[in-house]
């Protein structure tokens, strides 16, 4: 940049060097992480300054200035100023055992080969756990990591945009009516506080075929409705559920549909709440101005409403994807504790618990670290997208 400044005349000030978007993003990210460490370093330095020579000298000088106190009085005052520690002590002690220690332990133990949590025995260090987890070569008959990853990703990236879009439509509709708005609102918010396991079981009954499928026993509500259109009953959640096989990967599409329907149903109320309240808080003057200019309802929606609630939409996408990556309870509610047949509906979190229950702690640790890394990557990309889109406010 210096040589550009030296360039005479034509360009008064050269623009700073433009990196490409991704590079720029990682540079900014690095700066932010560095900032955090600098702050931490400052705080730590301040903390230890009192123990250094200069710090002690300064303290002595300060003490000489002030009133002379007895040692007991000084101790009493010192304790009084530090009494904050007493307040945070319970939280700190609990976090040391249940939060800080596990973080260190997961990083250390995931590199122990053949680690068993109960006995603490392991045979040598190395990245063996990660390799085996990624290859699916755990030799225990547990869930397969690739299968779980693909399931989680597909389910999340289909159901979250779908439910956000539906929530947008519903809140636009809610916003445009005046009568019995409250009644609709209340009913639509009902699925808000539900237990994923309980409601998952209810959804499973909608799809379940009991006994044989020759209509002597129930084939489930959904199959009956499909039957009106001449579609034969599909085994949505059972053992003979249809699926596509891609190498070792199986895509149980029928179970996917069931899960996505459940996810959309349970995700809608929160999204409607956020979007609807955002729409209510848009200044009415914009709409009046649009009306004067003769804009149609459709134009108003896309040119005024959508941009104004963009921050909320991106917030919903971020939280939705975060939640989707950690889904587990709904799967158990719908498909039982084995997560479908041979774990074909396993999720990332389900993978961890599967290996904890199998006693293969090393694989569970490796899986949890991989989940952590994936979530981090998604968080960073989300941050980037959010930053770009939320310039309206």
């Amino acid at each position, binding site marked *: 940049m210096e040589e550009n400044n030296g360039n005479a005349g034509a360009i008064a000030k050269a623009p700073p060097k433009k990196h490409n978007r991704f590079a720029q993003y990682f540079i900014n990210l690095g700066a932010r992480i560095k900032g955090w460490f600098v702050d931490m370093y400052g705080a730590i330095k301040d903390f230890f300054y009192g123990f250094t020579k200069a710090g002690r000298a300064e303290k002595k000088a300060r003490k000489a200035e002030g009133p002379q106190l007895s040692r007991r009085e000084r101790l009493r005052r010192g304790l009084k100023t530090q009494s904050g520690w007493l307040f945070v002590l319970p939280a700190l002690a609990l976090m040391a055992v249940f939060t800080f220690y596990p973080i260190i332990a997961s990083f250390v133990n995931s590199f122990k080969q053949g680690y068993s949590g109960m006995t603490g025995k392991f045979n040598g260090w190395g990245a063996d756990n990660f390799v085996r987890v990624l290859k699916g070569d755990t030799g225990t008959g547990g869930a397969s990591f690739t299968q779980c990853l693909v399931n989680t990703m597909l389910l999340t990236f289909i159901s979250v945009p779908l439910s956000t879009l539906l929530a947008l439509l519903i809140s636009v509709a809610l916003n445009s009516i005046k009568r019995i708005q409250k009644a609709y609102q209340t009913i639509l918010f*009902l699925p808000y506080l539900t237990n994923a396991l309980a409601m998952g079981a209810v959804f499973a009954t909608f799809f379940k075929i009991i006994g044989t499928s020759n209509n002597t026993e129930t084939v489930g509500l959904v199959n009956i409705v499909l039957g009106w259109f001449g579609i034969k009953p599909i085994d949505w959640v059972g053992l003979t559920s249809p699926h596509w096989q891609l190498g070792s990967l199986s895509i149980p599409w029928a179970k996917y549909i069931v899960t996505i329907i459940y996810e959309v149903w349970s995700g809608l109320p929160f999204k409607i709440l956020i979007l609807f309240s955002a729409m209510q808080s848009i200044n009415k003057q914009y709409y009046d101005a649009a009306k004067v200019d003769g804009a149609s309802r459709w134009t108003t929606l896309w040119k005024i409403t959508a941009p104004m609630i963009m921050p909320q939409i991106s917030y919903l996408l971020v939280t939705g994807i975060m939640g989707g990556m950690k889904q587990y309870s709904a799967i158990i509610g719908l498909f039982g504790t084995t997560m479908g047949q041979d774990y074909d509906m396993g999720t990332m979190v389900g993978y961890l618990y599967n290996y904890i229950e199998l006693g293969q702690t090393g694989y569970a640790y490796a899986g949890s670290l991989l989940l952590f890394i994936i979530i981090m990557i998604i968080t960073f990309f989300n941050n980037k997208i959010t930053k770009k889109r939320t310039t309206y406010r």
Partner: protein
Amino acid sequence: MTNLLLSSTAADWVVALMVILVIAGIIAIIFLTVKLCRMVRERRSPAAKVGAWDLSAGSSGFDAKKMQRADKAKHITKNVLVYLFLTVCAVLAFLPFYWMIISSFKTEFEFRQSVPTFFPHEFQWKNYWMIFHQTVAGSGSAATFQQILLNTIVVGLLSTLLGLVIIVITAYAFARMEFKGKNILFALMIATMMIPGELFTISNYITVAKGGMNDSYVVLILPFLVSVYYIYLLRNNFMQIPNSLYQAAKVDGLSDLGYLIKVMIPLTAPTLISITLLRFIGTWNSYIWPRLVNTEPWQMITNWVTGGFVDTKQVTSPWGANWTMYNNFFGGQALDSLKMAAVCMVSLPLLILFIFCRRYIMRGVSKSGTKG
């Protein structure tokens, strides 16, 4: 009995559809009547018409009127479509709850009919008696519903109250007190929020198992007492309270603890109520951790609901000794009508809580984006 029910259910679908159509129809009719009344009124009073349609009032009379009418018609069709869409969505949102409640009162025979009924022909209250007196399926342990409910309530209350105390005092220390290393500690705590909670579970499980703490309430309560997010939320709330209040309280001779209890807690009560409710709901819904660390008699209500409910023999019952609901007709099969009764027992308290405390819960959730 079964045959009789089977033959009479064909009409049930028609009835259900008709009910939905009638409700939709009533809504549409009310709406249209109101609209029409207003239209007529507007036509009668020219002043109102000019007021409402001042944009087109200046143009030539007859055409404008025609255009207005066309506009109105378009407007009404649009509104009807909007109401129809919302009604369909509302019906679909409510359907699982309705299905859950009616299924819990059906007999298993009725539940399994090839043409489902939309209202139980015979109310089977015995479903509830059965699930209350059944031990958790698949284990020989004596974990009845009473035991499980007791576990959930004791753990829920203790964990909520103790957690609240810890959250409040920690948030207070971070918001108002000065001590060495405060900023380091706070930065460290906030940094842990980025890490998914599943990472902790494995180590915690080993810690608990090694410490021999399995099968106790302690193990359900202790690991989740500290919640960094709520500390952060409450600290920000505390920091919004002006400092002058603190100085005034100091002048009046109030201690730090006294200031916290007498001034800060009343001022931040809405947030505290939200936190309390969300924590209790979180405990009520906890599933993974109890299943991992405890055996059935020490587990929580959601663990109970995932068990299969079967037609077991009851040694004592109001209907005689060695009573079974269906005379072992279904063998060891899991019965969905019983399961729906269990699902009702888990879901309805949450729904009731939601109806009564909607404002606080929504506030908390819209801030944190999580349920508990």
